[in-house]
């Protein structure tokens, strides 16, 4: 304990103090949503506005859930859809992108440069304009109103592959040579060496893939015509449209926002630790 204390330098002390202030400032929006979601209606109209909630109430959430029970599709269906889609997408994106990135980073073969440049190029295209061609393709191969229609478009994740290629190319080639001499197959090298060493990068892509899929409303809007196949993000978003200018709806909106935020937070906390811890002990490089 004493040793640990001694290692903290004055520089770190100043840093912690300044940073705590900055961090508090940066996290104001989150604190705000947290408070706003529990505010009863009368506190919304207070002047001067109060940042913190005085008498927290759960009625906003109640309103959010009840709104759905009146509708034809129960609230739980949206949650179920979201959970299924996110889980399947996350697992498949990790597997598919790491496999692709491993090969692209470590082997020489025909078309490699072409594929790499296509990936970087595709990062730049604004997704707005490919909406219609994508819809045509999805309906052409009959993926409307199926879970695959949610999952497959997300599998093509050039960002994930791009990032993993950068990471995996840093893993020393000698490690793989050694494994090959010891008789490991390509698949063995992939599972025994590349996967464990790429965990920080995989954690990072998991975080933003989860975030992207969890908050995505495009697939629900364009590819799903059946209300029972749409996700929570779509439902929340449809509740919120038109609330922007009214104070009265703000607390429900904040409750919905909080609802969408919490899973992101959980995933982030789960994976971020991996990002920060693994590389330190792995002895890479």
């Amino acid at each position, binding site marked *: 304990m004493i040793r640990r204390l001694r290692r903290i330098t004055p520089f770190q002390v100043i840093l912690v103090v300044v940073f705590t202030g900055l*961090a508090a400032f*940066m996290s104001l929006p989150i604190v705000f949503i947290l408070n706003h979601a529990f505010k009863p209606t009368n506190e919304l109209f207070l*002047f001067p*506005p109060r940042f913190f909630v005085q008498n927290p109430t759960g009625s906003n959430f109640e309103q959010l859930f009840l709104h759905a029970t009146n509708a034809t599709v129960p609230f739980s269906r949206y949650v179920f859809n979201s959970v299924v889609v996110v889980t399947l997408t996350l697992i498949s994106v990790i597997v598919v992108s790491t496999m*692709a990135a491993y090969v692209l980073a470590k082997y020489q*073969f025909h078309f490699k440069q072409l594929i790499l440049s296509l990936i970087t190029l595709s990062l730049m295209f604004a997704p*707005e304009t490919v909406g219609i061609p994508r819809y045509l393709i999805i309906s052409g191969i009959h993926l409307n109103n199926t879970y695959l229609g949610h999952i497959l478009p997300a599998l093509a994740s050039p960002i994930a592959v791009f990032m993993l290629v950068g990471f995996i190319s840093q893993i020393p080639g000698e490690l793989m040579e050694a494994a090959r001499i010891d008789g490991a197959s*390509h698949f063995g090298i992939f599972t025994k060496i590349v996967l464990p060493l790429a965990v920080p990068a995989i954690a990072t892509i998991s975080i933003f893939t989860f975030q992207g899929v969890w908050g995505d409303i495009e697939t629900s809007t364009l590819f799903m015509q059946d209300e029972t196949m749409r996700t929570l993000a779509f439902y929340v978003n449809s509740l919120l449209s038109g609330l922007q200018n009214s104070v009265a709806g703000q607390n429900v909106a904040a409750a919905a926002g909080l609802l969408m935020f919490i899973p992101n937070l959980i995933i982030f906390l789960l994976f*971020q630790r991996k990002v*920060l811890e693994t590389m330190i002990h792995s002895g890479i490089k």
Partner: protein
Amino acid sequence: MNTELSPSLVKVARMTSVRLKWNRFWTEIRRDSFCYLFLAPFLICFTVFIVVPVIMAATLGFTSYDGFGSLRFIGFDNYIALFTQDIIFLTKALPNTFLFALIVGPGGYILAFLFAWLIHQLPLRVRDYYTLAFYAPSMAGGVALSVVWIAAFSGDRVGYLNNFLLHMGWIDNAIVWLQKPEYLLKVMIVVSLWISFSVGFLAMLAGLQTVNRELYEAGRIDGISNRLQEVFYITLPSMKPQLLFSAVMTIVTTLKAGSISTQLTGLPITPQYAGHLVINHIDDYAFIRFELGYASAISVVLLLVSYFAMRFAYRLFGSKEEL
């Protein structure tokens, strides 16, 4: 006999050389077959959901198309119109986007690196909390944040910013932050910087972990005296892939930004086009006016702009041989 046969012999030889190359190509493909096997799932999805739609969209740029059938090929007319007649594009969307991208892009990038580096200097046990605090705004997503920003920049006295400024006595009347053209773009820039600690920030944090500790010790022996030198001579060169990734993501996200103005004002088109970015222009033509051909042409132009920005980033980080 020999002289008679020689022309056909040459032909045979040429034939075999082509076939030889072809054969070698095939053996190489077969040798690398596991590479293609590993790539296949990604490549199939990538082709079907990205490459083909992009090609389709790019072709649309040469047509006049309203989304309901009559596809008419009109050559470069869309592009000519874009650069000669579209006043809003030339006087609002383009300058706004460049201003926005020039501040938010490099600004957000430098901030992200600075804070990632500073977080890295902190004791291990508290790093997570600070990472979370900085990353949370970009994690909260559009739904959550539109609630926050609207409350913060609300035009009446109830808005937090107005309330604060009035309370301090710095302004006399409440300012309509989000509807006044002279403030909107600035508010957008501030908000974007606030939420700019996203993927690139995480990548940099992860990259900082990969820097070999022994390099720092070696550097100290070689005469590096302060932390600034450490950063320039050891940290930055050691995390090139992450820096490049982050730069690319910054360029892409800033040039593709557009929903922010809609979230802030609640309108697809901002008052007097004050916060009009290229993406808003695309949305305007694609989803309000249904001129999909023209919208595609604009997005092709945007693609070219980001391509050259990207080339610049690659040159800056000089890692051509790595990727």
